[in-house]
């Protein structure tokens, strides 16, 4: 199994809603990432978890709340988002030696905030 699975694939939410994005991998990777990608822009790192602990937070607003319940799962809890938060949210995972083999990315969740 060399997949990173993200659900849902598409999400439309209002600015007062609370929703969660989910990500799952069964490759034994101990690093998991959330990236945000706007149209015609590169992926931007949001969070990194290493061994289920938050390792990097790229000054992301608190309306985005990550959670890593176990080594296979990564969630991104969303609350009180703004329309400018609409984007493709990508989850990725990697071995510690991600330098040589890169990270495996999911297909992403296309989020629209209305």
């Amino acid at each position: 199994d060399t997949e990173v699975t993200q659900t849902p694939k598409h999400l439309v939410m209002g600015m007062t809603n609370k929703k969660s994005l989910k990500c799952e991998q069964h490759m034994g990777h101990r690093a998991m990432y959330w990236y945000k990608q706007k149209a015609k822009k590169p992926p931007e790192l949001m969070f990194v978890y290493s061994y289920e602990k938050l390792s990097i937070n790229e000054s992301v607003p608190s309306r985005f709340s990550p959670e890593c319940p176990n080594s296979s799962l990564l969630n991104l809890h969303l609350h009180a988002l703004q329309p400018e938060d609409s984007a493709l949210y990508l989850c990725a995972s990697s071995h510690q030696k991600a330098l040589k083999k890169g990270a495996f990315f999911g297909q992403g969740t296309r989020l629209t905030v209305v």
Partner: protein
Amino acid sequence: DQQVKQNSPSLSVQEGRISILNCDYTNSMFDYFLWYKKYPAEGPTFLISISSIKDKNEDGRFTVFLNKSAKHLSLHIVPSQPGDSAVYFCAAHALSGTYKYIFGTGTRLKVLA
């Protein structure tokens, strides 16, 4: 401030010819560079990487060249195939000992049959 730049937003190449995608960076502390390919509606897929202590790495049709003094790397695809049509991102490993990568702006490659 974009630390990793791909100055060509798009590139068209005939099938069978060489595709050369370029990437420039500003931070001399980057110690590893990776190339990813991205099809529409999919996440990026890792292609090839290179350490900053090397100047070339080859994997099948893909070769990455690194010129540290110029802070420049390039991805060569030869021969190019229609299935190579995608957006290509270079990424730099930003901080030793961490998992932080910075992605370039991307180049859309179109291989014409």
